């Protein structure tokens, strides 16, 4: 790996040292990364429809490795990343990719972004090898699996909260908008549009099940086949019975951009909420002006604070102005947590060295890591991350569920919630301004 960072440059004005990177520096002491490399792996969708994110996951891991190596690696051993393509993803493909990383490179840890369609199969491969797995599949299935057999799945960590927090977080967010009079509902109707798959349907079901408690009637609950570019039939139903809020839990950026383009041809006075997809730059590139006003949220992303902005600057400097740092931060964050824990545990273990990797896992569980996306703290039972404000009410103890709004499609979206991270106020979308 062509390292572009040295120790001196890294120390000079690095915002991350204000966070938890200091732990690694302390553990490494004066060690320089010159020992035998530690292979670490990533299985990511480097080709096919999710490649835009997959490439950023790879970049995030590369950047983290460069920075960690500049600080002495893990107790003097540099990190060497290897990658496998998960293409269209799904358990069967993901498992084979992770198995290859273990069999071919003997990786000590697998540090992923997300892989869609993931159930629990990869965790079994990891458990068989006795290594560490950090991923962002954003699935409540992960927590349920680890709880079912904590001894076997000791090494699997989901470095973001489960997807169900999207649902509860949204309902609370809408209430907060109404409470501070930024938004008033013209009626109680809510349209929910989802795609096939556990992830999107888990979010949609959580919104649907909790809607009545917040005074909402679900007027439309529609599953669409994806990828989708023709939204006419769905929009016709929305226009026939305009809801106050449209909730889209499908997440492909290009599909969501097409939704907005076609919605803006004849918009209804509805607040449009989407999840994850609009955080990817290609959404704004495709939707253009039609993206203005869209509200979206992500349970993991770079904050717009000192640490987050420094990361963004650094990331774009390294990978180009169009690089998607919000996706890249997922594996970046996971790599830093693992490396810090491995250094504190006295080193990492190769496949089969369960004893050493159990020490690393113990350290990961006990860390409260302040990274570019806020706080990463793992739930003891499920080894996934606490969500703030849905799961905990202290921002220093949970990863913020960020609500953002695209107020000007030519620049990055504005972070509007939660407190204290919000940097801008919510604005009524242009199509609702009369």
């Amino acid at each position, binding site marked *: 790996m062509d390292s572009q960072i040295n120790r001196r440059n890294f120390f000079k004005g690095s915002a991350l040292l204000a966070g938890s990177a200091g732990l690694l520096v302390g553990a490494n002491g004066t060690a320089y990364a010159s020992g035998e490399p530690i292979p670490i792996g990533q299985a990511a969708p*480097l*080709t096919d429809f999710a490649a835009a994110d997959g490439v950023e996951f790879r970049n995030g891991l590369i950047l983290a490795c460069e920075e960690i190596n500049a600080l002495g690696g893990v107790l003097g051993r540099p990190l060497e990343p290897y990658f496998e*393509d998960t293409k*269209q993803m*799904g*358990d*069967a*493909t*993901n*498992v*084979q990719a992770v*198995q*290859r990383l*273990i*069999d*071919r490179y003997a990786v000590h840890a697998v540090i992923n972004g997300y892989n*869609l*369609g*993931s*159930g*629990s*199969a990869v965790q*079994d*491969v990891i458990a*068989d090898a006795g290594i560490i797995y950090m991923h962002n599949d954003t*699935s*409540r*299935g992960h927590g*349920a*699996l680890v*709880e*079912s057999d904590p001894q076997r799945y000791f090494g699997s960590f989901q470095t973001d909260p489960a997807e169900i927090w999207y649902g509860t977080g949204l309902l609370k967010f809408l209430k907060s908008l109404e409470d501070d009079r930024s938004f008033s509902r013209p009626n109680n109707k809510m349209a929910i549009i*989802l795609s*096939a*798959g*556990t992830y999107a*349907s*888990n979010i949609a*079901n959580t919104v649907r099940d909790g809607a009545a408690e917040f005074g909402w009637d679900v007027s439309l609950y529609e*599953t669409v*086949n994806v990828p989708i570019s023709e939204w006419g039939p769905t929009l016709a139903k929305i226009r026939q019975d305009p809801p106050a809020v449209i909730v889209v839990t499908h997440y492909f950026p290009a599909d969501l951009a097409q939704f907005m383009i076609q919605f803006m041809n004849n918009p209804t006075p509805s607040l449009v909420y989407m999840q994850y997809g609009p955080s990817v730059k290609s959404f704004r590139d495709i939707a253009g002006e039609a993206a203005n006003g869209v509200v979206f949220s992500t349970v993991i992303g770079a904050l717009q604070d000192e640490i987050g902005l420094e990361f963004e600057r650094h990331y774009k400097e390294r990978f180009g102005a169009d690089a998607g740092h919000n996706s890249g931060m997922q594996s970046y964050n996971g790599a830093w947590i693992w490396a810090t824990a491995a250094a504190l545990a006295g080193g990492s273990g190769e496949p*089969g060295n369960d004893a050493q990797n159990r020490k690393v896992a113990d350290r990961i569980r006990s860390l409260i890591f302040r990274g570019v996306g806020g706080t990463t703290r793992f739930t003891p039972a499920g080894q996934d991350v606490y969500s703030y404000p849905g799961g905990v009410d202290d921002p220093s103890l949970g990863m913020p569920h960020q609500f953002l709004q695209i107020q000007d499609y030519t620049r990055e979206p504005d972070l509007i919630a939660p407190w204290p991270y919000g940097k801008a106020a919510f604005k009524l979308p242009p199509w609702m301004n009369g």
Partner: protein
Amino acid sequence: MTARQRDITLCLLFSGLAALLPLVSDVRYTVTQTTFFFIWATVVVQWNLVFGIGGIFSLAQMALFAIGAYTTAMLGYYFGTSMILAMPIGALLAVLFSVALGLACLKLRGPYVALLTLCVAQVLYLTIVNDTDCFTNPPSGCMPLMGGVRGFSRFGDLGFRELLGSGFYVGRYYVGLAILTVAMIVSIIVIRSPMGLAFQALRDNPVYAAARGMDRFKYQLWIFGLSAFFTGLAGSFYAVNTGAVGPVVFSFSHLLFLLSMIIVGGVGTIWGPIVGALLLMFAEEAMRELGDMRDIGMGLILVVCVVLMPRGIVGLFEDLVRWRTARTAQAVPLPRRETV
């Protein structure tokens, strides 16, 4: 030694050599990737029976594979059935499905068979991925009857973990090798039997074959069902070996990759599918680091093979042997006739 005996002996010899691999190689990657080779080779050997020998342009092979895989996974997931029992059940269900499909499509010819079998596979795929209704609600969230987009995992294994510990993959290797060996021997027996000759006759001169009393429909239905058993069994073993089954098994690119193995190796030859599978899996492995260029590389190999070796590698080899034999025969002077 007859041709059939020779081919079966060769097959057993190769299997014996392959059985030594885990003993001489301590590289786990080689062993696990070879296990995948056994799976795909089994599928293409059986597909070759249908396509190359039977002359049926069926694209249902991955659907049969998926039926084996899904049946095994669902039996394990919903009923806790032992994988040793679930695997043959998966294979038998693939046979039933194949025979039903054969009854519907074998009256058709050529591209119509391809279209119908592809349509059936697509209907199965769409039924699975568009099913969002929760059949069960485990802690991990909604689980549609056939697994939906996510599919199934944690449905059981063959017990090699308990038996062999961290070397469990070696046990699976030998299961894969055994399935391929039996599938290959059955394929040789069919090709080198009167049934194989009947197929050759039906393919080369259907009118004459029919005039001699050969029932095309009956023979094709037989081969459709027979090949489905091993294809379904390969699917069942794939599910157990991977530990997960999802709709990716229906992917069109996968289908084409397997079809390419037959074409590159040699359609209708005994050893062609094995050679094609070996070559393309090696090529894919060698180009793994090239990203998108890998697909272009694989495409180039296919184009070069189709243009320069229309009968595939084994076909070319057979042509060369035939040419050399003919040349040798010409070179040997005829015995001089004694004149009285």
